């Protein structure tokens, strides 16, 4: 049976057009399934604030895409179609084009005898517009005049002649749907056989791809992923080529979380197809042969001991630990690939390991830092930390006395890690609310971080013992860096461990809600990849779904720290980080803590949030200018200082560099630079004045700014912003401007937990059966998270959550 969508062309509460569609739905139920869509929640179209991704527009998009045809019932307002109907058609012709080639039938009802005749003509013209490009059925115009008198009490059309005419119009439309379906079948495609070298767009720029075409088939797609960040886009590089080859089509859905790389691969194949003499648009119209209606998927029921939400570092750690305790573990991940944000991490995790660190020599400045710390007035330390601070002071003084007159070794202790985590997280928000890490949680973290390193080694993560590293924002050298592959190194060990020890990982499975009975958590309900309902019963649920740095609305809602968070702010995170676990938890009564605080990465790509585009040079070499071409901050400032200064200056700013500075960039190659200049994402000019014009600032202002900056470098002092250190001047052409904007990086707030990772309710009581670990939980990092502490957090609390869940809920079995 054909599936049709009926659109009620008005947002009015009472509508005869709605009544007409409802009648058609009932009257034709043996011939077609008509789903009625309402315009009630559709916002007015605005090209400046794209809402194409909003749930309401996506609902229209998906339903229309899946339907065989569309019926639009329009009233007439002022001789034309209502603005509400025009608005949805504008949304559906802007970024999305679900009506392209779709069979459409127009009907209309009105108070007057006109029966919306003029609105229907306008609607036809609108549907003919190239952005909409619907296939509107010609003739068979159904106009229902004097609609107020047309229906009986059951909502049926009274006049049998009207019903007969509607029957004939509808019968014709069903045939029309078939005819148009054939029209949409593309002509046979033929290629000039060969292997075509093209490019795909990867996460880190363009990457080589070769596409082999025979006379009538796409035979093979090879992508060289050697320059890509492992773990982020792998799934796109595997699945997209397979889907293209299997379906011999370019109408392939992007993989969520890797949509840029998905489209990059599709576009690359399109280029090859074009070079081979075929029209890629024909392949984009060709459906993959999967449009045949799939049978309703049955409800799937699963039973396990511990179910874990999220397959990032925290979730996989919890799963591994559950399995080690002899219990069953099931991990649900909403994205197609595992790894979450962990695969985007730089790699080093913090853990004080003095036996190891002491083998390294201290570097200049470290003793000074320790001395300054020991000299802090204990009264400025919050009471719960004061005893630890006093003990630490003793440790530091012993160390300083012991190494007087020598460079000394690298000092560290659990207490130094604890006090630095505490001091680093101390912040005051815009409302004067002070926050710092909750003592017992910070103690738990710093006491057990090293155990986490050892545990990771035991399941196969190898650490580079030859160097102790300090990730950005870490304050101290205590980073344990895994060998190879940055953050992916952890996932590369954890995933196979879980799978080979009997754990199950289900991807593309989004948890919708937790289930409860008698005040305890009994499992959850999720939606699987085939939209099937999955019901899981479990003894415990561990939320390990990450923070909400990719959910701007949520950030804005809770923010109390930044003066403003732009609607179009980007994120360094995986797009999966939308705060799902926080939502799941609060719906069963969980309390939240520290939600107003978030961390931004000040120097991110304005369009993608990426850190490693443009020219990334050490801060002593870059000059930051605002949209007026003036410096506005000490480039050596902390992340928070740089971020707030950027927000105060309209968010967008530029890193100015010259040809000498370019040589200090650690992220790029000449080829990538040329690509970005060509793409307009990086600016290059032979004079500062020309560069200024390109970034739309006054050439005189930028030239004066750089002249002043160069004079500060000569003088070794910056009287304006007191930059701590500078190295190179900006003087050798060509000059570069890299546009930057702050991007969201880490959300500090989350579910309130205790030291056993139990989730607490507003009364401070444990919610039985519910646990949380990682960024989804709050209270540890408070106002600011030290670099390297997020990994320490997830591996430590991931294990704790698993241990608690097993001890609390699974031991009962043995009775």
């Amino acid at each position, binding site marked *: 049976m054909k599936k049709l969508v009926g659109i009620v062309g*008005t*947002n*009015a*509460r009472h509508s005869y057009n709605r009544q007409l569609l409802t009648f058609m739905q009932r009257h034709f139920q043996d011939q077609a399934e008509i789903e009625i869509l309402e315009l009630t929640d559709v*916002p*007015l*179209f*605005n*090209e*400046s604030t794209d809402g194409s991704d909003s749930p309401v527009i996506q609902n229209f998009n998906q339903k229309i895409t899946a339907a065989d045809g569309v019926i639009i019932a329009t009233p007439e*307002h*002022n*001789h*034309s*179609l*209502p*603005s*509400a109907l*025009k*608005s949805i*058609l*504008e949304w559906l*012709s802007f970024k999305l084009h679900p009506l392209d080639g779709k069979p459409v039938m127009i009907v209309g009802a009105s*108070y*007057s*005898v*006109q029966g919306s005749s*003029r609105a229907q003509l*306008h609607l036809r*013209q*609108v549907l*003919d*517009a190239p*952005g*909409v490009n619907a296939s509107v059925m010609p003739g068979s115009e159904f106009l229902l005049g*004097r609609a*107020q008198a047309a229906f009986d009490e059951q909502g049926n059309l009274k006049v049998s002649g009207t019903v007969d005419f509607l029957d004939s119009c509808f019968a014709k439309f069903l045939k029309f749907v078939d005819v148009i379906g054939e029209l949409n079948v593309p002509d046979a495609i033929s290629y000039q056989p060969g292997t075509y070298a093209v490019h795909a767009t990867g996460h880190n720029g363009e990457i080589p791809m070769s596409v082999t075409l025979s006379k009538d088939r796409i035979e093979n797609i090879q992508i060289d992923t050697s320059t890509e960040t492992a773990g982020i886009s792998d799934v796109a590089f595997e699945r997209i080529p397979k889907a293209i080859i299997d379906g011999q089509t370019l109408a392939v859905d992007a993989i969520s979380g890797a949509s840029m790389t998905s489209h990059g691969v599709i576009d690359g194949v399109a280029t090859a197809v074009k070079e081979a003499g075929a029209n890629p648009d024909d392949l984009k119209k060709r459906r993959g042969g999967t449009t045949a209606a799939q049978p309703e998927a049955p409800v799937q029921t699963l039973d396990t001991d511990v179910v874990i939400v999220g397959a990032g570092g925290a979730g996989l750690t919890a799963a591994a630990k559950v399995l080690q305790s002899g219990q069953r573990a099931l991990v649900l991940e909403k994205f197609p690939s595992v790894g979450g944000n962990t695969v985007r991490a730089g790699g080093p995790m913090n853990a004080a390991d003095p036996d190891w660190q002491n083998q390294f020599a201290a570097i200049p400045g470290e003793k000074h830092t320790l001395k300054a710390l020991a000299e802090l007035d204990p009264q400025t330390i919050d009471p719960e930390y004061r005893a630890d601070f006093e003990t630490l002071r003793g440790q530091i003084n012993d160390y300083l006395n012991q190494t007087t007159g020598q460079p000394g070794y690298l000092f560290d202790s659990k207490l130094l890690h604890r006090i630095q985590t505490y001091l680093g997280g101390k912040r005051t928000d815009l409302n004067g609310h002070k926050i710092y890490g909750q003592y017992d949680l910070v103690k738990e973290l710093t006491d057990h971080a090293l155990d986490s390193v050892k545990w990771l080694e035991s399941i196969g993560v190898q650490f580079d013992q030859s160097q102790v590293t300090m990730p950005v924002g870490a304050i101290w050298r205590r980073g344990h860096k895994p060998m190879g592959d940055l953050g992916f190194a952890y996932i590369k060990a954890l995933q196979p461990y879980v799978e080979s020890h009997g754990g199950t990982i289900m991807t593309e499975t989004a948890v919708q809600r937790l289930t409860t009975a008698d005040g305890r958590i009994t499992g959850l309900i999720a939606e699987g990849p085939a939209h099937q309902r999955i019901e899981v019963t479990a003894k415990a649920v561990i939320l390990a779904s990450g923070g909400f740095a990719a959910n701007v609305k949520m950030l804005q809602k809770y923010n109390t720290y930044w003066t403003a968070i732009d609607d179009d702010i980007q994120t360094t995170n995986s797009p999966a980080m939308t705060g799902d676990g926080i939502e799941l938890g609060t719906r069963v009564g969980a309390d939240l803590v520290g939600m107003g605080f978030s961390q931004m990465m000040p120097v991110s790509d304005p369009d993608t949030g990426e850190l490693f585009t443009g020219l990334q040079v050490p801060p002593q070499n870059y000059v930051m200018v605002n949209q007026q071409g003036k410096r506005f901050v000490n480039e050596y400032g902390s992340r928070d200082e740089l971020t707030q200064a950027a927000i105060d200056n309209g968010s967008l700013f530029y890193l100015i560099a010259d040809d000498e500075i370019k040589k200090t960039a650690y992220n790029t190659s000449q080829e990538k630079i040329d690509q970005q200049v060509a793409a307009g994402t990086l600016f290059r000019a032979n004079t500062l004045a020309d560069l200024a014009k390109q970034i739309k600032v006054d050439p005189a202002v930028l030239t004066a700014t750089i002249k002043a900056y160069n004079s500060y470098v000569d003088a070794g002092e910056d009287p304006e912003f007191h930059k701590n250190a500078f190295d190179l001047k900006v003087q050798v052409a060509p000059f570069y401007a890299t546009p930057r904007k702050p991007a969201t990086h880490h959300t500090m707030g989350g579910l309130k937990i205790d030291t056993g990772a139990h989730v607490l309710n507003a009364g401070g009581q444990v919610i039985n059966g519910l646990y949380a670990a990682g960024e989804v939980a709050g209270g540890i990092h408070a106002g600011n998270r030290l670099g390297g502490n997020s990994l320490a957090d997830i591996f430590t609390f991931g294990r704790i959550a698993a241990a608690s869940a097993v001890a609390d809920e699974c031991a009962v079995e043995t009775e």
Partner: protein
Amino acid sequence: MKLVGIVGTNATQSTNRQLLQYMQRHFADQAGLEICEIVDLPAFNEPEQHVAPAAVQTLSDAISAADGVIFATPEYDHSIPAALKSAIEWLSYTTRPLINKPVMIVGASNGSLGTSRAQAHLRQILEAPELKALVMPNVEYLLGHSLQAFDANGDLVDADKRHELDQAFNEFVAFVGLTEKLTPTETFFEQSRQFSWSQITNGEDL
């Protein structure tokens, strides 16, 4: 002469806004042109009471106080933008300030057609009984390739297009003067002001 220019879009960047700004400056000696935006108007939703929200009332008051109105419309999908249609629906459903008001239609688009189809729709819309505007006949001003049409000072680059606009505007000024003589007494339009969509339920198709 006091005119109101309505920017027919809620977009941040609009060459129709630019066109009105150019006209405002360029014709400053002949008429005061107040530019009105529709971006802050809510989406029309047929309220129970026929009362204009504050933003609609403000726009309506400006129109009522003016001698004539210039609509500058983009073209979205062969018609006027939903945002402009929504503004017109508000006016037609509540205060009806366009009744008997002289109107000139202009439009700018980046394509070569310069909003010809949107302007034709707008003409038909403004002739609806709830609106009854006096749209100037015979003259249409279509500005195609509008992204390249203005220089850095916001002036029209092309001399022919400048000249054409001068002529159209002069005709409109004359048209406004002419309509004053045409206008019957206020009471003539009383029935139009009373018109309501549901009135036709009684079989009175106006």
